[in-house]
């Protein structure tokens, strides 16, 4: 795999959360995986140890991906191999997302999120 040299003048990234990352430069293989229980409540009381992933099937259903079995003959001639980025500005990277300036060989990212809304009626 071709190696590239990455030059980035200015980076302004505000938040990187939940197994996301910012990569400047080459990488070989990336696996990012995240599971989240997104609970929004009218009364913002949370007990910290709540919720079990096995209670919800969104965390266990198989996710089918197209197989990577296509026969590709790739011919690359590398005249120059620099990457120049003037300015990179990202406010948020979340739940196994990747900002990557540089080369990579194989990349796999998976995110599973269960949203729950809890409204307490005013009696």
């Amino acid at each position: 795999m071709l190696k590239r040299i990455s030059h980035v003048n200015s980076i302004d990234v505000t938040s990187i959360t939940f197994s996301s990352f910012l990569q400047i430069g080459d990488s070989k293989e990336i696996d990012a995986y995240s599971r989240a229980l997104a609970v929004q409540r009218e009364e913002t009381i949370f007990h910290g140890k709540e919720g079990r992933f096995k209670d919800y099937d969104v965390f266990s259903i198989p996710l089918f991906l197209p197989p990577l079995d296509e026969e590709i003959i790739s011919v690359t001639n590398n005249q120059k191999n620099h990457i120049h980025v003037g300015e990179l500005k990202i406010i948020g990277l979340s739940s196994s997302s990747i900002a990557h300036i540089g080369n990579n060989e194989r990349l796999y990212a998976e995110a599973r999120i269960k949203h729950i809304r809890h409204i307490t009626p005013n009696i």
Partner: protein
Amino acid sequence: MIFEVTNHDLCVGKINILGVSSSSLVLVGDTNSIQLVSAFDTPPESLIIGPLVPLAPGG
């Protein structure tokens, strides 16, 4: 499939993105294989209207 690539310098002036979320990718560069998958679930029963009862305690 025959895929021929001639690589020169790769120059990007400015990238301005609000958010990159749930297994998404911003790539400036080459790659061989990318597999991104995400699943999220908001069926009707995930809307709970009732007194505050915490979820079952986690492991």
